[in-house]
């Protein structure tokens, strides 16, 4: 455990990057995923086709490959986003948690777009789990598709969607490790670096980082349980 104790601040920073990436990718995934789900259940055939095609293509491609395609594709479209918040806080030196380099942003976008396809499927199955009578009643009082979806079906689907969305978020947090492959200095990257520098302690370093991930997973599933309990019909 010496290697982890000696590099404690780097380990914490690396997990901080993992958390940042997961939160930002979660926002992208939830927004895009909800829009895709709305497209997939919409009365517009073109919309349904677009939603279905997106989910089929993205779900069947490895995340690492999507990250590589985004990383090589977006610069071709003249998109090279970078964000540095250090100056906002008046910091001279670059702090890893405040500077978002291109690799981080590309990997986050890829992770968000990849997870969006799973969010879409979770939301869609939640919508399908609502009894037919609910939507029928809404339509019979004259609500439009948008009103039926937003005011009647989605509020009820929310309850059914929490457990699968929680597993999606857990899978996404674990998947953020793949960003190590495109040079983002998050937790898995840090573990690789530490094991290279301290080859003799590889087992204890691995267990330390594994525990770190287990804590993150436990936090997300606790949050999911909390939301599930709060949304439950008593």
């Amino acid at each position, binding site marked *: 455990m010496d290697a982890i104790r000696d590099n404690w601040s780097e380990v914490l920073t690396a997990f901080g990057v993992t958390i940042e990436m997961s939160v930002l990718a979660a926002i992208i995934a939830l927004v895009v995923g909800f829009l895709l789900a709305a497209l997939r*259940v919409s*009365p*517009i*055939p*073109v919309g*349904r086709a*677009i939603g279905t095609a997106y989910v*089929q293509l993205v*779900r*069947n*491609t*490895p*995340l*690492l*490959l*999507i990250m*590589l*395609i985004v990383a*090589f*594709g977006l610069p*071709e*479209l*003249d998109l090279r986003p970078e964000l540095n918040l250090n100056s906002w806080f008046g910091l001279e030196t670059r702090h890893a948690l405040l500077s978002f380099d291109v690799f981080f942003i590309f990997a986050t976008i890829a992770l968000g777009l990849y997870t969006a396809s*799973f969010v879409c*499927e*979770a939301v869609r199955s939640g*919508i399908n789990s609502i009894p*037919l009578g609910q*939507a*029928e009643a809404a*339509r019979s009082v004259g609500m439009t*598709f948008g009103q*039926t*979806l937003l005011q009647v*079906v989605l509020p009820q689907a929310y309850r059914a969607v929490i457990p*699968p969305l929680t*597993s*999606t978020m*857990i*899978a996404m947090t*674990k*998947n953020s*490790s*793949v960003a*190590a*492959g495109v040079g983002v200095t998050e*937790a*898995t990257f840090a*573990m*690789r670096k530490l*094991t290279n520098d301290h*080859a003799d302690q*590889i*087992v204890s370093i*691995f267990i330390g*980082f*594994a525990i770190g*991930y*287990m804590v993150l*997973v436990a936090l997300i599933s606790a949050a999911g349980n909390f939301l599930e309990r709060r949304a439950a019909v008593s």
Partner: protein
Amino acid sequence: MAASVLFDEPGPVTRRRHQLYGVVLAVLLIAVLWWVYLKLKAGGELEPEVFEDLSQENVWRAIGEGVVATLKAAAISIVLAVGLGFLLATGRLSEHAPVRIPCRWVIEFFRAVPVLLMMIFFFGFLAQNFDFETETNALVAVVAGLTLYNGAVLAEVFRAGVNAVPRGQVEAAYAIGLRKGQVLRIVQTPQAVRYMLPAIISQCVVTLKDTALGFIITYGELLRQGKSIAEFVHNNLITFLLIAVIYIAMNSALSLLASWLERRMSVRGHSARDAVLQVEEVLPVG
């Protein structure tokens, strides 16, 4: 066609409005794709030479080698994972706490740790302690990571499958005097396996996709071959898109197999279908 309960069969006015929305969406999509096309063309990504280079024989040989390496790692992992899953699930279902609790911890641990973290660990660990060649070392690390993760997931799938077997079956088995092990082996497992098959195949898709992580520890699977090809033809984007098409084709074939199996089983009655769905609920999404 009532594709959804969310909207009525549209009348003539609504149908025209929907057609208009459809046209707007289609135009937007085509505009975006056209913009991407123009950008790529301007960037020199779509020069004919790129496609000529990509259609050379050695490129396709490299892709073939990559597909074989990918399928090899995935096949070994899924077979070992099914075995490990059965073992862990049997332990997890045991009535003896000293067996049940460690199995539960093993399952929880390997479900929570990212596969890539395990692969990197095994790659380093094996390199230190064994005298394998690098390629073998990478294959063993990939297989070890995938087996442990998928074994833990399949253990939960198997447990859900056993629990989905109707109680009456187990009670009847005990009533005719079968022992605990016999009930599990002769009555519960054969039925559970039937419920599990679609879930196992979905897990195969996950495994096949996750072999791409072998790229990071230098295993010569499809994505790594793609990287070498990209360097050879001096074009990253088009090569990776080509590799993506191959992955999508392989995984779509597996997904079709899964939904075919699911349909075949649902013919046999609603309870089987419900049991299948119950089993699939424990699959991690993503």
